[in-house]
């Protein structure tokens, strides 16, 4: 696991890591880690981001990692992405996109394709699929990467890079659900079955600090690698410090005094 790897590399004690898990198959990962346990919080469906906002701003020294599914993060929790992007909350989100609601047994999710048959769309889905990478960029997320669950090492590297980055980072992972939505062949390609792969490695020539290039990239599914990495984004904790640096602190005694008659 990338989390353990980082621990070793940076010699940050494992206690300093907090995993904020969504509700879904993906979030259950928080209970499955072996070895020294990081801290975890497995709250309610769709609220990983506000919870991590609370954790990270209450204690900026912590390394906070969000783990959530496409339903949790993009559907019920969709409202929380833009505000964190605007704050540039310094946490890393690993979004496991399987194009389906796994835990509740196969309903459609925001990334399920138009027209697809699922348990909740017996005659075909009537909503278009969302393009999460494009959306992240548009909301102003400062680090956006795209990964594929079958490439464990590549994924670990991207998570690492996201955690090293100071600012709001999202690693969006294509993670086929073998039970309800097995897109492995479509993503990886299968020469025998004549399936062209949807995924492709991002070209080395791509400059991840170039937002326009990033937008171009995410038009075509599914690039793998770092899509965007804002060059000079100041993270929330620093911003807060900057803004309040010149404010004289006060205390209750003084506040009461100012009201005396």
């Amino acid at each position, binding site marked *: 696991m990338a989390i353990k790897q980082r621990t070793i590399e940076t010699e940050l004690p*494992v*206690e*300093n*890591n*907090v995993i*904020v898990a969504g509700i879904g198959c993906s979030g*259950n990962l*928080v*209970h499955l880690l072996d070895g*020294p*346990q*990081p*801290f*975890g*919080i*497995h*709250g*309610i469906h769709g*609220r990983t*981001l*506000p*919870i*991590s*906002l*609370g*954790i*990270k*701003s*209450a*204690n900026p*020294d*912590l390394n906070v990692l969000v783990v959530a599914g496409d339903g949790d993060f993009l559907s019920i929790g969709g*409202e*929380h992405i*833009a*505000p964190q992007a605007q704050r540039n909350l310094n946490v890393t989100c690993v979004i496991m996109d399987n194009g389906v609601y796994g835990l509740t047994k196969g309903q459609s999710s925001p990334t399920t394709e138009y027209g697809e048959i699922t348990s909740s769309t017996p005659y075909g889905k009537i909503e278009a699929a969302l393009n999460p990478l494009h959306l992240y960029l548009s909301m102003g997320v400062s680090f956006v990467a795209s990964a594929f669950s079958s490439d464990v090492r590549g994924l670990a590297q991207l998570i690492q890079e996201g955690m090293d980055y100071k600012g709001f980072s999202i690693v969006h992972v294509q993670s086929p659900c073998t039970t309800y939505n097995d897109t492995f062949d479509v993503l990886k390609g299968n020469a025998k079955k004549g399936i062209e792969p949807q995924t492709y490695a991002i070209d080395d020539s791509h400059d991840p600090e170039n937002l326009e290039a990033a937008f171009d990239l995410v038009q075509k599914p599914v690039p793998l690698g770092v899509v965007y990495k804002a060059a000079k984004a100041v993270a929330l904790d620093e911003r*807060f410090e900057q803004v*309040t640096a010149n*404010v*004289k*602190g*006060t*205390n*209750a*005694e003084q*506040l*009461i005094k100012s*009201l*005396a*008659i």
Partner: protein
Amino acid sequence: MLKQDFVVRFAGEGGQGMVTAAEAMAQAAAQVGYHVMTFVTFPSQIMGGPTWTQARISTTPALSNGDDIDVLVAFNEEAYDTHKDEVTDGGVIIYDSAVFQIDDDSSLGVAFDELGRSTGNTRAANMVILGALAKLVNWPEEYLVEFVKARFSRGRADDETIIEQNIHGLSLGKVEIEKSIFSLEELAPPNPPDYEQIVVKGNDLLAIGAIAAGLDYYVGYPISPATTILLYMEKNLIGPGKFVYQASSEIEAVNTVMGAGYAGARAMTATSGPGFSLMSEGIGAMWMMEIPGVIVDVQRGGPATGLPTKTEQSDLFAALHPAHGDASMPVIAPGTVEECFYAATKAIEWAERYQGPVMLLSEHMMADRTQNIPKPDVSSVKQPQREVYSGSNGYLRYEGTDVSPMPLPGGPGSYVANASEHDPMGDTTHLPIRHVENTERRFNKLKLLEDGTYESQNSEEAIAVMPWGGSKGPMQEAYVKLMENGEKIGWYYTMFMNPLPPALLEELRTKDLVIVPEVNFQGQFSSILRSEGVKAVSITQYTGLPFKTKDLVKQVTEKAEEQRKVAVSS
């Protein structure tokens, strides 16, 4: 006889400076030693809409708005029509004669605005009014002059000019009364208390209380009448380890408090009804995960968007059981501006002690009113320290049926705070025995909060009144009258709504009747009391305004009489 009490109401349209007028009057009176209380109600519109404010000035502590008004200042005809019947016999109505004309013996037309502007200051209309009011009750001139000097000595170049203009405004108002046939009885001189005082609004004091208790973390989404807590915090909750910001919604706010509480911060959010409803899932999760945090609900008229700028005590059911599942939230409901301070410190303390969410139920009528109160003793407030786990790893956070030291990220004892039912490590389990044990654990922890205090008087009586929250003040005033009338009735009061102090509950269970005045339709608190085995009934009203003292006197008397008849005939 001299007047001991003076009530003035300002009524007109939003944006006409009524709030300023009432507050200036109160501030000036407080500074010379009177007891003051204001009441503010305006429509939820930025401009326009019927608005009124009231200031009560008294030689003894003011416990309610005052039932009848001595002076009505009417800024337009609608205001005149709506409020004139509440003016007491011998009272005076002053109206803006530049706006409308009326023919009424007890009314005096004054062109406030014109006179105000004639001082050279476009904002001096209020001063004309204050000058007139002061004269009506025969206040020494220096009361207001001193006030004006204090307020406008801001170290600016034009201070002098402005002070002069305002004082001129005062005297113009005074002259209007002198020219007229109107007067009131003279207001008795103030009877300054021998303790230190402050003048403050409920929301500000609630915020200060939280800061005094060591609040680290505040997040809020604007909503009347809770917004001013956010604004106060944004300005003042600054310093090392402190964090404050505006959330993007109440759902974000409550989940952020959850995260901050989990990470070790003393965290709080404040909202009003609609926002409180949105927080419901998050509050339930904090209960389940055993994470401390304070949720303030400054009640307004409900349900739904309701009456954003009116008062009501109708969120008690919601506060006790905000979410699905078995949970019983600790609830503290201050009854006065002063109690807002102690309620906030106690709420933070409770949250840290039992490790869970605490509901702080305030009310619009306290939030926005200005009042003089004894200076709270900040030095006596102990900042609660959560019991933090400091052992080695491999800790079982959810073991046992009692509160247990809480590990904090960054320290030892890592675990998963889990909103699903969990084993002692925090991993998900659905074993029946764990659900049984954990449910009992969560309820058992409430016992730690049975330290609430309560007031009682004449506890030997079989019939008692027991107001809660903001109905305390009016009921206190009514109680004094009931005692004067020779009624045999006891008095109980606590701001600790859940858990109720056990000794109090015991006492209440022995009564033949407990009468609960509350500003809601359903009689929410008496219903809770009945489910706890207390013979309780409510006196309710749901006008969006606080109780009138005289109504309480009448209804309590009737209810007590009825009960006695039943007791005799049975």
